């Protein structure tokens, strides 16, 4: 029996300044499971995440986390909820002015009365989990994109959250690192009782670790269910997505002739002794 909160979206329409991006979603994300949200680039996955986290107000509908309506919860009560959530943003969103240790230690320093030595131990442990044990004293701008992402994950994990949101944890990582990260998420699911919501484009990782899948596209929710149910779907959009197939075209796309090199301002043919 899980105590991790589930997430319930009712008639939810999300978007920016009144323009809907995804409309009329009725989604139930089960507690204690790993749910993956997939969909084409720009279909509104990150937007949905931001609304669930109450960073933006929805155009319509309601969001409940563990039975609490996120938007009618009082400030203090919502803060309690927030301290139980961990979030990995799409680009890590580390604070540029702090070193990696301080970035990851920040939530602990702000919200707990733990001793500094204990905080250091926790931070080192979390950073080692994501393979960054050697980079403690670097600043975010001294890290690669993939390292920033992993550091963001370490920060999201540092308070041992009950609900973890990850926006594309494996994009920008090499295949081995992606598999490691999938493994880590799975291990955490086994170790802690937690709900995970992971946005991804990585179908391989979806097939290997997702308990539940939500597919967004076309401005709405196209599918929700288990991976097995998803694989049986016949909807052409879903099939194309699952089979990783490009759109079919009758007419050729590349109709533009190449640029005439003699029209370049720098006369390269002469400078490079070509022709």
């Amino acid at each position, binding site marked *: 029996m899980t105590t991790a909160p589930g997430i319930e979206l009712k008639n939810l329409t999300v978007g920016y300044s009144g323009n809907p991006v995804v409309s009329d979603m009725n989604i139930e994300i089960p507690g204690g499971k790993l749910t993956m949200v997939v969909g084409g680039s720009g279909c509104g996955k990150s937007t949905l995440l931001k609304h669930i*986290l109450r960073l933006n107000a929805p155009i319509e509908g309601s969001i409940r986390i563990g039975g609490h309506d996120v938007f009618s919860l009082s400030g203090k009560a919502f803060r309690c909820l*927030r301290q139980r959530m961990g979030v990995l943003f799409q680009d890590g969103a580390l604070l540029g002015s702090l070193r990696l240790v301080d970035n990851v230690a920040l*939530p602990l320093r702000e919200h707990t009365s733990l001793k500094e030595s204990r905080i250091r131990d926790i931070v080192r442990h979390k950073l080692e989990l994501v393979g960054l044990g050697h980079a403690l004293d670097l600043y975010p701008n001294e890290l690669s994109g993939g390292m920033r992402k992993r550091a963001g994950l370490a920060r999201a994990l540092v308070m041992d959250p009950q609900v973890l949101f990850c926006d594309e944890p494996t994009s920008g990582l090499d295949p081995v690192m992606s598999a490691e990260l999938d493994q880590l998420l799975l291990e955490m699911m086994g170790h802690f009782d937690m709900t995970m919501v992971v946005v991804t484009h990585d179908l391989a990782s979806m097939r290997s670790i997702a308990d539940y899948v939500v597919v967004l596209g076309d401005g709405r929710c196209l599918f929700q269910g288990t991976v097995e149910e998803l694989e049986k779907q016949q909807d052409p959009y879903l099939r194309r997505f699952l089979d990783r197939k490009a759109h079919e075209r009758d007419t050729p796309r590349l109709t533009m002739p190449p640029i005439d090199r003699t029209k370049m301002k720098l006369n390269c043919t002469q400078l490079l002794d070509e022709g």
Partner: protein
Amino acid sequence: MSRVLEGVATPFNALGTVCLHVLEEMGALFIFFLDSVRLMFAGWGQFAKTVRQIYFIGFQSISVIALIGLFTGMVMGMQLYFALSVFGADGFLGTGVALSMVRELAPVLTAIMLTGRAGSAMTAEIGVMRISEQIDALTIMDINPMRYLVAPKMAASIISFPILTALFNLIAITGGWLTGVKLLGANAGVYWYRVEAALSWDDIYGGFLKALMFGVLVCTICCYEGYYTHTRGHAGPEGVSQSTTNAVVKSCVIILMADYILTSLLW
């Protein structure tokens, strides 16, 4: 007939819209300021952050303020000496330098200099954090960005502006002595006597109050512009640069406007 009325009403409509917008903005700025003041005292953690900000806004500005103060005082000493000696009144040089510095030039020039040096940096820093989702990340971690970012800057401004203004005064009056007395030959004893005799405590309090007000205004405007950079027309780096420009221009204009109002109320 209604056409004519409409034609008459249009400019009033536009004026009304502008006034409403300005009032709205002023209300938002005031709430922003109150919020940051309230959060200044939220826990001991604020103290360390404030000290760090004082180092940046205050300590690192000392050399610039000293330089500006020195040259302003030197120019003032020279010009006033030339003007006063026409009437044989060069004994009043100290009065002129001291009063103009303490009442007007020191608070205004210090504030404008700090707007360029520290205010623009505040806007850019907070603006960049906004567009790179760092402020969202703080919110998600349940760390109030107003408390974490803005309140220490406000506290540091309230402390730094008056102290730097005092420094400006000191150096500028010495600068006036350098040119007026050392270079052009006014009497040193008379100069310092006049400086002391001219200044009443009201002048010093007034200058101090001005510096305090300017500190609050500059910090509020600069942090506000950065904090809401995403709600302005352009997003991204261009939005941040625009917010920074806005912050500096608005701060300078407001400093001079507030200076006029304070001067007419105080003296």
